[in-house]
């Protein structure tokens, strides 16, 4: 469904020193700096896959997404989405994709969302019967039956995002690009949107490509992740594989009336406070350590977990680990 080979994007960005003198000088002669936003990216996605782009701010995720959607023309390399070259922006291609951006809106601010949907029906030439059925299905799933009749400016952020999703999906895209779709939403709304995206993917077989700063979005939705940093692909695989690669140690925690005399002998001590002990332990030593901790007096709340995702990401985007992955 998506094939990317040697994809690059360079931007020429103006730069100047601080201060009035530099600003005046820049009026006459402006200096530019070439930024390699995306460098030599290669990957391919199968139909129906759910894939997450992970990376710090400015890593090149959104630029990649926009090149896949045909909004930005690549500087070099080849992109193929649903059998089309996106930058040609053929109508047949644009009917097969949709892009939802959490920080931008396609809905007209002053009108109720239903008027925007009707406009999209004309633009995408959706058959009226099909449109009615699809609108009913989407509005029922997202529970926006009444909401879509109020002017968009009066909607909450979550309600607006639900309406944005309806607008984006009315024409039944085969490829759905989601750029930070849950940004700024409360936890309940995030869960609702995640569940909806998963259901849409399952029921319609659409390929979903997601970028998000909320690790839970990616963890819950995407069996496969691509880590992009400095415009380069650093990792391609499952979240579990990434976690094990970056933070191979398991986190073992316990609460007990008395803790071991030398906890460092069991593993790396993360926390030792009151009756609580948290250790990072090598996977092969987990059974032995668990055995030791179970034997502690009044031992309770014993847990073995992978390292928290946020910690993995923090470590991943520390330069050393990123270099190791590369």
């Amino acid at each position, binding site marked *: 469904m998506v094939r990317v080979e040697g994809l690059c994007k360079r931007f020429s960005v103006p730069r100047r020193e601080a201060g009035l003198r530099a600003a005046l000088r820049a009026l006459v002669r402006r200096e530019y700096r070439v930024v390699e936003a995306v460098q030599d990216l290669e990957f391919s996605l199968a139909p129906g896959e759910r894939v997450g782009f992970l990376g710090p701010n400015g890593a090149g995720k959104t630029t990649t997404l926009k090149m896949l959607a045909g*909004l930005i023309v690549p500087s070099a390399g080849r992109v193929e989405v649903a059998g089309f070259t996106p930058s040609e922006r053929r109508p047949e291609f644009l009917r097969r*994709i949709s892009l939802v*951006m959490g920080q931008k809106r396609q809905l007209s601010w002053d009108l109720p969302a239903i008027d925007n949907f009707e*406009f999209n029906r004309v633009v995408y030439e959706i058959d009226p019967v099909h449109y009615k059925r699809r609108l009913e299905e989407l509005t029922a799933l997202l529970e926006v039956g009444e909401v879509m009749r109020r002017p968009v400016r009066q909607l909450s952020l979550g309600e607006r995002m639900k309406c944005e999703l309806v607008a984006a999906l009315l024409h039944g895209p085969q490829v759905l690009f989601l750029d930070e779709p849950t940004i700024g939403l409360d936890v309940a709304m995030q869960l609702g949107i995640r569940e909806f995206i998963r259901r849409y993917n399952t029921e319609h077989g659409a390929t979903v490509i997601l970028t998000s700063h909320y690790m839970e979005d990616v963890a819950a939705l995407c069996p496969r992740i691509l880590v992009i940093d400095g415009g380069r692909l650093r990792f391609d695989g499952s979240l579990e594989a990434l976690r094990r690669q970056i933070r191979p140690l398991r986190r073992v925690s316990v609460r007990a009336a008395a803790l071991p005399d030398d906890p460092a002998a069991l593993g790396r001590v993360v926390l030792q406070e009151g009756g609580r002990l948290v250790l990072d332990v090598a996977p092969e030593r987990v059974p032995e350590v668990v055995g030791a901790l179970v034997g502690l007096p009044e031992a309770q709340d014993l847990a073995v977990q992978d390292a928290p995702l946020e910690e993995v990401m923090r470590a991943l985007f520390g330069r050393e680990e990123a270099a190791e992955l590369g």
Partner: protein
Amino acid sequence: MFYLRLVRAQLEMSTLTALQYRLGFWTEGLLGLLWSVIGIAPLFVAVEHLGAVEGWGRWELVVLTGCFTVLSGTFTALLQPALRASMTHILKGTLDYVLLRPADGLVLCLTCAFQPWHLVEVVGGLALVIAGLWLGEVEVTAAGLAAGLATGVAGVVALYAFGVLVLCASFQALQLQALTHVMEALMDFGRWPAQVFPPLLRVLFTFVVPLLVMTSYPAEALLGRLSWGTVAQLAAVSATLLVVARLAWVRSVRGYTSASS
């Protein structure tokens, strides 16, 4: 057919937006009417005292003013709002959504907003043209009418092409909304007959910034004073400008970098 439906849907959206706020709708309407009356009123005061200007009689000047008013109304009702809205899209990065629609991006940009009340000006302009022809006892021949319509269409095409070039400039330098005001100010030259301008300016306003194609020549065509050769020349000027504008648009969109999220 698709593009007719699309343009209709875009115009409907603008009308719905105008109707969404009742007070705003009536205020806009009142201002639109006032604007049209203010634009035409000096003519009623001065018409009695109008002498011939470079071979143009009193009522012929009224026809010219009518042509100018039609064009100016078209600009303020249709082109200016669309240009301003599209420039805002470029500035805010929401042009992304326009470009993602399965239709020609330029058509979508040029029809994305309009101010229905300013169409009153277009109606007023047409009334002036008819009144000028009638009171000036001009016999409009079928050929003259056809030539007038042809130059009128060429004029509107030239206006839109010029607008597209202004829009393309805003891809390079953001916050160029003031350019639409410059365009409006430039259009004021179209109030005058081509003959009042020195030869160099006449060439400039015919071939480079074709204001005269938009106003003076359609009026001359209606008055039966324009040869078909000149009509063909003017059509060629508009067509060339249209091709240049289209190429500039394609180039601008290819260089579009979007705004970061």
